[in-house]
């Protein structure tokens, strides 16, 4: 599972380099450049990727450790 998630992040990162639209001036709906449209969609894909990471790789162990702490006492002791 861990490696599938790493692969997903690498694939999404690689998709950022969309050299295939580099010189394409096609206008979507007559006014929206295709290169911009691709990257707007890319932002949505990035958000979906974060949904997957939050569901499958959330570091709940560190959350549990931190939640169990008495914050004011710790802050005082740190000083």
């Amino acid at each position, binding site marked *: 599972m861990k490696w599938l998630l790493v692969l997903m992040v690498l694939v999404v990162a690689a998709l950022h380099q969309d050299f295939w639209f*580099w010189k394409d001036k096609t206008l979507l709906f007559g006014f929206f450049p295709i290169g911009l449209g691709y990257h707007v969609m890319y932002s949505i894909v990035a958000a979906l990727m974060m949904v997957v990471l939050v569901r499958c790789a959330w570091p709940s162990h560190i959350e549990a450790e931190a939640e169990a702490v008495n914050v004011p006492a710790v802050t005082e002791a740190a000083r």
Partner: protein
Amino acid sequence: MIPAIIVFVYLAIVLYIGIFAFRKGKKGSSEDFFLASRSLGPAVFLLSIFGTNMTAVAILGASGMAYERGIGVYGLMASASGLVIPLTIFFIGTRLWALGKRFGHMTQVQFLRDRWECGRIGTFISVLTALMLIPYIIIGVMGGGSTLKAISDGFVSYEVGGAVVAVVVMSYVFFGGMRGTAWVNTFQTLLFLCFGAIAFFLIAQKIGGFDVAMQKLLAMKPPKGPPTAQLLSRERIPMQEFFSYMFIPLSAIMFPHVAIMCLTAEKMSHFKRTVIFYPICIMLIWAPSVFLGVIAKSQFPALGPGETNEVIVMLLQRSTDPIIAGILGAGIMACVMASDSQILALSTIFTEDLFAYHGGRRRFGEKVQVWAGRIFVVAITVFAYVVALSLKNQASIFDVAIRFAFSGFASLAPVMLAALFWKRSTKWGALAAALWVTASVLFFWWLQESTAGIAPRPGQPPVDIWPQLGPLAGLFQRATRSVVNWGFLPVMLQCLVSAFLVIVVSLLTPAPSRATIDKYFPARERRGAFTGTDSVAVPAGAE
């Protein structure tokens, strides 16, 4: 005049929010003043951390850059940030939050000092990050002055506009501390999310439709320079530059104001919504900014480099009635005033990393520490205003400084990654990287300034600065806008060398004590006992 009045009303609301936050705070508590008692809820946390990152440089700079370089600016800055920043918040921000809550850290440097058992190296990193942050605060005051002047059609001068913005920001940070700053950032983010969409449609209506403007861009053939049709593609952005921009968003989590903001969440689960919605928020702000920047080329085809950052303001003024222009102007002011969290971060660094660390808190008490922080807020704002006035016509100095500061913060990211994830990393590895960051930022800045005379024209390939280096000559090239290394921006080389130094120097120097390693990397059987969960035993010392 009407737009200026609306903007002043907006400033009054912002001031009121800050003072209201003051009433809600615990008086005399440094954790409350600097971190809002680590109590921010999910919505305020998301919107304030996002608003903190959305500065005038991001919004007005993006549209100005799109005016010159086309739609590729979105991929260059926005979609790269939409991928990298949530990842850094996910992997680094959550851990900073957890360690801050467990051990009481209030700044990045407090964590680094404790993690690597070091004092002066921490001070060095603290001063380095503070110095790299100062240009942002100055440019915020400058942006406030020039935006207010533009919105009021010159009725409010640059000097008065800058002073008004400085006083408002200073006041709500002074009174409200982190709570006031977070609430104001939330309000500002909502404002520019809403009014960005309104601006988009209003401008479309007034210019006769975006399709008309796009056709105009496709047909325009300027007497000098490349055809404007290039702006609808990425032809004006070299591939290597596009790739190296992926490294720049690493800077976000290393900005002291963003890292400190990560410590303010009430629960770690608040990070979940933040990382998921961050790319969407970026898209909602940046896609209209970049698109309108390109559209502005069809409306104002001959702006000089110093004028391009005001294209959105110009479009609004020409395209809408005064009341709408005023409301939208308030939205722009919301971006310009993002220096609040940077001022507060500098104040936190000063009081926690320097004043408290060197015994100030022990000697004078917590109340005095909070007042020292407040006095620092006033001092840094006055300093920024004086510099903004005296170097009024040299804003480009700070633009350049910010560009290099981005690279500097990005190349400090390996230091934080090593501290969080690599037991064997040492303070000497961190020092080597920090020294490299300092030297490389200064070197590339000097190289850029000293080679301005040989910069090729737009569209021309980079030229070797020192051809006598033979096969290594490509390491130092001058492109149109900046120095590059084999076509890649220096930030890439800076990050890679920084990571290399952290690794190599750490391996060559003694590891931190067993006690410190155990403190930050508890073996799983102890972790299980601590949290009451099932555990798998891992031998002590296992990497």
